[in-house]
């Protein structure tokens, strides 16, 4: 009995230390964001002497944070829709439809994941310029609207569906479109949630691309807008901290709301069979 207890304690100790490592910095940032003026912000001190939420109000005064958030929300929202729809259609085609070059197409999708975004930044920018989409939010959305990673995720999810079910549907007279909407889509809900969450997160966090495309402050997304808090000469660490908390809050909320589906989605390929 004794050794088991000992092991259990050790296990919890391990878990707790990982918890401390992963959420410690976040707590520190949060503590910084509610520190009043005149407190040390560069030494770890999790309990502010003079807690205040004034920094959050100050962020909104310094930068039009709501405009930025609205832009970000728009971009992320559109990205979620295009990714769920587009990636599902492409994934289904790659997994279930029979056409020439299907394998080749899948390989192309897979290999495009390997190209670092920075390598195609300039050419992508030139394309956007050619299309007349620089300095528009459409230009921000477009490159990430159907991510290859999501296509592959969904392809694998569709592949995990037993082929027999679909054959049965074919015998019942369902065409490809009907099989896609009535049969395949409802059974990969979990993966769709994962894709939605991923695409929301990626586009919400993206900094470099919106920065390069946009030049009008009115159109800035939250990540670029918050960079204004890092002034050239003087910066208020408390405002920076408050800004980052504002930026990360929607992600946390979204994750909490969807976490049930999220974990189911991650393991979807494994459970179904």
């Amino acid at each position, binding site marked *: 009995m004794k050794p088991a207890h000992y092991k259990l304690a050790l296990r919890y100790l391990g878990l707790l230390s990982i918890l401390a490592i992963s959420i410690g910095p976040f707590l520190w940032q949060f503590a910084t964001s509610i520190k009043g003026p005149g407190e040390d912000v560069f030494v770890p001190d999790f309990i502010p002497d003079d807690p205040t939420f004034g920094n959050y109000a100050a962020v909104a005064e310094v930068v039009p944070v709501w405009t930025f958030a609205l832009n970000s929300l728009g971009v992320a929202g559109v990205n979620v829709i295009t990714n769920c729809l587009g990636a599902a259609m492409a994934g289904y085609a790659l997994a279930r439809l029979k056409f020439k070059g299907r394998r080749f197409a899948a390989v192309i999708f897979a290999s495009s994941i390997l190209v670092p975004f920075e390598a195609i930044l300039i050419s992508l920018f030139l394309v956007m310029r050619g299309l007349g989409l620089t300095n528009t939010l459409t230009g921000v959305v477009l490159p990430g609207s159907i991510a290859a990673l999501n296509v592959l995720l969904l392809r694998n999810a569709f592949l995990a569906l037993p082929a027999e079910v679909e054959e049965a549907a074919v015998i019942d007279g369902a065409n490809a479109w009907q099989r896609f909407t009535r049969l395949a889509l409802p059974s990969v809900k979990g993966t769709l949630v994962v894709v939605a969450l991923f695409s929301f997160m990626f586009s919400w966090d993206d900094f470099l691309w919106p920065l*390069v495309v946009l030049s009008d402050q009115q159109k800035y997304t939250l990540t670029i807008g918050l960079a*204004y808090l890092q002034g*050239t000469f003087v910066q208020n660490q408390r405002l920076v901290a408050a800004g980052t908390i504002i930026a990360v809050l929607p992600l946390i909320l979204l994750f909490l709301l969807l976490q049930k589906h999220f974990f189911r989605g991650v393991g979807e390929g494994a459970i179904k069979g």
Partner: protein
Amino acid sequence: MKRRTFLAGLVALPITSSVAGCGLSSNTASNSSASGQVTGEITFQTWSLKPKYTDYVNGVIDAFQKQHQGTTVKWVDQPADGYLAKVMADASAGSLPDVINVPPDLSFPLAKAGQLVNLDESLKDAKPEYLENAWQAFEIPGKGGCYGFPWYLNTGPIFYNKALFTQAGLDPNKPPTNFKELEQQALQLAQKKVAMLGQTPSIADFGLYGVKVFENDKFTFNEPKGVEFVETYKRMYDVGALIPEALTQNYTGAGAKFMAQQTALNPGSAYDLGKFKTDAPSLYANIGITKPITNTGSANMFLHGVSVPKSSKNQATALAFGRFVTNAENQVKFAKLASIFPSTSKGGDDPYFTTEDGSDEARVRVAAAKQLKTAVNYTPVQFSDQMREALLQQLADAMLGKKSAKQALDDAVAECNRLLK
């Protein structure tokens, strides 16, 4: 940081090829003259001045528009993060704003690619209005011509932590005045487990030590004096006088370590005092201020400028505005607001920069203004972000003992010279 360096190299490729294409075709015919009418609309891009200096910049723009009826200046401000990527993307698309705020190391690749207006040619009378050392910073060595109006300058004292000095048994009123003392005191601090420095030397530090950094179109900081300098750092590193993070740290990171009181000494700027006061009050209570350590008699300076790209559709107005933003009156006003220094030849004569009122801020300001008269921008304009990274890595190898100081510097110089081509 990683991300940006990677970009720097990548972006340099398309710039030379595509830029030559767009730049040449669009501007040679229509508007290469600076003597045209000062009218119409231009765009002015600054480096992270919003929102703190919004009123100031708008004031300058209003004054310009009043002085030149019929002009409109559209102001865009870009955050400092990713500024390089943004400018390079715009440059290769031929869509740079009419007036851009760039430091010398960013103006250099643009000027080399033939993207910027040569001020020595277009505005022959502008040169005497600026400090000579500031004007020189925007000249392209070996190619001639100046490619940016010098804007604000910055230099500063060395800050040290008196509490840490006392703790290690050092006299808190006797900070190091030369590199020899720096090493001695660092070794003494290290015995008490206190680190002196938060950063391995930057290219500017080599310059301060008196190393010949760049000569005859080549990097030369692997000369014996450079090796001697790195060996000093190696000795300090071995006893723990440099924090372990120093190997990968940039300027901002080192500043944060100093504010966290993990290092005892850090070079800074006049505006840092305000930062200490609000963000690290327990450090501020013990702050010591001293002169920069230099073997050459000249302190280091940083500067920013504004350049006009050749692709501008309205060069006459752009040049007039660039000169207006950087004129003595506007610079002095800006310098007072932001605790920086004007680059105009008469700017430093303002009583604000010559008289002390007893406060620490004024003391630092006056000392810095004095030191600016002889200050040098030790960072060669050719020194790109990628080269900075290469030097950092080689120095890390030297500190860890994977390579000798000589070998590390030889490798760094070879890499920098390779990147130069």
